């Protein structure tokens, strides 16, 4: 129910941002669309912590500015490499451990690695907690291996026991299907 309500709130904000008009007809159409969307989403059983990670909450507001700072630093490093005449690169693959409990947390971590230039996530293996990363230089690799991004992603995650169980249940159901 919490997820359905927060989905409704997010859709309402999106509607107002995209239309910008407050006539009764348009607001009415907006409310109708939101109700229809939530009804369909509930029937598709996609209204959960994964589709709508409200439990990240205020902690996400701390994580994203830090990620933006990392993206800027990494961009400058890669720009230096590309613009240097000799281009000293050592492209290679390495693996790091992801300590997040949920799929959504690990996805956030893997996406954050890709968003910082110089490192690209190419696979998640071994029970979904080992991330294979392609790095352009040794310095880019050292950035990921310092483990700070992993730590901050885990701190943002804030998973409850119920969420972990519902994840395991969804995975078991997925594996049952042919």
């Amino acid at each position, binding site marked *: 129910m919490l997820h359905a309500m927060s989905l409704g709130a997010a859709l309402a904000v999106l509607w107002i941002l995209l239309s910008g008009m407050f006539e009764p007809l348009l607001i009415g159409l907006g409310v109708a669309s939101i109700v229809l969307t939530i009804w369909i989403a509930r029937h598709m059983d996609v209204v959960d912590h994964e589709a709508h990670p409200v439990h990240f909450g205020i902690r996400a507001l701390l994580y994203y500015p830090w990620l933006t700072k990392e993206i800027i630093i990494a961009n400058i490093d*890669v720009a230096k490499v590309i613009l240097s005449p000799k281009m000293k690169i050592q*492209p*290679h693959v390495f693996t790091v451990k992801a300590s997040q409990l949920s799929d959504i947390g690990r996805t956030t971590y893997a996406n954050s690695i*890709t968003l910082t230039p110089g490192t690209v996530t190419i*696979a998640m293996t071994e029970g979904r907690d080992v991330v294979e990363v*392609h790095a352009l230089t040794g310095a880019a690799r050292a950035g990921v*291996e310092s483990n700070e991004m992993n730590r901050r992603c885990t701190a943002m995650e804030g998973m409850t026991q119920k969420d972990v169980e519902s994840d395991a249940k969804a995975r078991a159901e997925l594996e049952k299907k042919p």
Partner: protein
Amino acid sequence: MAFLDIMIGPLALADWLSWFCLIIGAFFLITGTLGIVRLPDVFSRMHGAGMVDTLGIMLMLIGLMFQAEEWIVVAKLGLILMFIFFTSPTTTFALARAAINGGINPGPKKAGRSVDIQDKKSKDAKVEHKKQGTTSSNT
């Protein structure tokens, strides 16, 4: 916001900030594109493309936000930025998987925590990558 209308020299503060972001953003877009051309193989080239879809696009959109006259335009540009930040890693990941499934070796594997890469090994890697670069561009 009123302070953005303060005139500094020939331009308002908003215009100065806008030009600053647009020029730095353009620099990162051009450098990223140059990276796609200069880097040797498909996986390394993704790093160049990554610059274009992160800081390049971010600074261009922020530069455009300073030119917006209504708050709703700023909000829409912000939404575009948010969606790009969620979708671009997904597309990069899909591209990497497609390249691996297509039989391209992503490069030498280095296990463990050591950061130093021996010179000889990295030279071998470079030769290997040059070969891959030519084969991938031919196919």
